């Protein structure tokens, strides 16, 4: 009996890092062709393509990709949703399949970000000769640095500090130890951009970017792509036993935006929309945080990982510090978090991230994760946040076949 479940049939991520000899189309092609091969399909089978490349969002990455690997005339959705772009592409493909518009959907995200440096609003604009109010705040000159900060490390530093103010227990060292965990995890991931274990001292004494985030506590700018092929339940049942065995069930696919909260236009609120997404995802999947064998969450900065333990319900409200202190989020712990190394070491090629974290979870659910395999993993959760804001949460389950 077919259901309206959607499955991941094929998925791939490129190695993250510096790809000096490859452009975005090369990387997107590599990820897409490998995901199709993993699914046992070709471009001719695909009924919809959703594609994202945030730093060049107007360029039509989907059609550019088709021109290299297969112009089949199918609808293309070029999507942009900040750091949630990859998850948005995947969800777009899932919705098309769920709506019955096609049998197979394809999602791809790619970014060329090596050497991009600090991601911020912009360099200060050239000032005129005379002060003249401009923009929605009637500002006579640029506000970044004069009225708070627009840098990502600074914004997410405040997100972690606000949690510390509310519940206590945080410190520079605590945030650095979260980063220490993810860098330790990365040593087992050959696809990570950085695979060097770092001591707490090294992390705390590295270049300060925005207190309490030092450089290794920030997501690593790098190049990379990831792609996934999704299929309906009814079509999956017509495929080979091997395809059915390796297929991963999308038990929940949720995208939220930030609902209004008192301070959300002062400091972006990355909490409420994540809590909402997680609650919806657990309800749709009929599962809870205790069922999760691993979690890939959006550690764009070490300060962000802490708040998402709480937002995703991995601990009691206010209990994120105790949760981390218990060792729960280490790979040997109760709920391993970011066993890939996370964005801090695996890297964060923006539009690829929201599919690459799904790849990581699928890799474990299929039992194919090699040295870093979480033994017996049956259920995993992948989470991304795009500032602005968008949140994607996917819950994935191992096939029973």
């Amino acid at each position, binding site marked *: 009996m077919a259901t309206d479940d959607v499955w991941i049939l094929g998925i791939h991520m490129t190695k993250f890092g510096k790809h000096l000899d490859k452009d975005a189309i090369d990387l997107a092609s590599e990820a897409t062709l490998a995901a199709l091969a993993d699914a046992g399909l070709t471009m001719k089978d695909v009924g919809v393509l959703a594609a994202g490349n945030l730093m060049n969002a107007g360029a039509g990455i989907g059609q550019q990709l088709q021109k290299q690997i297969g112009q089949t005339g199918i609808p293309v959705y070029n999507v942009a949703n900040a750091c949630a772009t990859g998850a948005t592409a995947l969800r777009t493909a899932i919705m098309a399949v769920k709506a019955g518009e096609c049998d197979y959907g394809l999602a791809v995200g790619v970014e060329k970000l090596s050497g991009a440096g*600090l991601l*911020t*609003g*912009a*360099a*200060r604009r050239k000032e*005129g*000769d*005379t*002060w003249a*109010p401009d923009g*929605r*705040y*009637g*500002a*006579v*000159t640029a*506000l*970044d*640095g*004069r*009225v*708070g*900060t*627009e*840098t990502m*490390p*600074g*914004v997410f*530093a*405040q*997100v972690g*500090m*606000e949690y*510390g*103010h509310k519940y206590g227990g945080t410190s*520079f060292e605590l945030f650095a130890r979260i980063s220490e965990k993810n860098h330790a995890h990365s040593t087992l991931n050959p696809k990570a951009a950085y695979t060097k274990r770092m001591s707490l001292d090294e992390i705390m004494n590295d*270049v*300060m*970017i*925005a*207190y*309490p*985030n030092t450089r290794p506590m920030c997501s690593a700018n790098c190049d990379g792509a990831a792609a996934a092929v999704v299929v309906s339940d009814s079509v999956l049942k017509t495929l080979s036993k091997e395809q059915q065995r390796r297929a991963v069930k999308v038990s929940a696919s949720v995208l939220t935006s930030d609902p*209004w909260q*008192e*301070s959300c*236009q*002062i*400091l972006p609120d990355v909490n409420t929309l994540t809590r909402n997404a997680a609650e919806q995802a657990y309800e749709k999947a009929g599962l809870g945080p205790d069922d999760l064998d691993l979690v890939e969450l959006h550690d764009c900065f070490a300060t962000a990982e802490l708040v998402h333990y709480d937002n995703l319900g991995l601990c009691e409200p206010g209990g994120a510090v105790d949760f981390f202190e218990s060792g729960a989020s280490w790979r040997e712990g109760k709920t391993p978090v970011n066993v890939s190394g996370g964005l801090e070491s695996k890297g964060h090629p923006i539009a690829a991230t929201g599919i690459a974290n799904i790849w990581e979870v699928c890799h474990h659910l299929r039992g194919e994760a090699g040295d870093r395999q979480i033994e017996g993993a049956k259920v995993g959760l992948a989470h991304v946040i795009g500032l602005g804001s968008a949140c994607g949460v996917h819950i994935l389950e191992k096939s029973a076949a």
Partner: protein
Amino acid sequence: MDEGSAVSEQVPLVDYLVLGDDPHLVAKECTTCGARFFDRRNACASCSATEFRPAPVATEGEVRAFTIVSMAAPGIPVPFVAALVDCDGTSVRGNLVNVPPDPEHVTLGMKVKLATVPVGTDSTGTEAIGFGFEPREES
């Protein structure tokens, strides 16, 4: 408005900063739900109503979050302290000023008050005045 005048004038950095003897911030408050905003509004993000009234914001507050920015876009002097200040229930974004930018002097929950800071002078001699929050003496 003061063509040819040699008299030095002051303008606020942002239109929600009121200068004068009693410098303070003024929010746009939704007349339906009370949500407060600092930018030009099309409607209320909380309830979608379209009427707003000016609401003076308390000049004293408490630091709810901060970061010490050591790396910023070209042209921005660092380090500086960016903060989220809770001014009697209204959240305000601003820098912490008149305090050394280090974690020994800047703390969560610190009591602060609004302070004006000079931004610069343009070619006509007009001075732009911005704002920040400085430590308040504990009583």
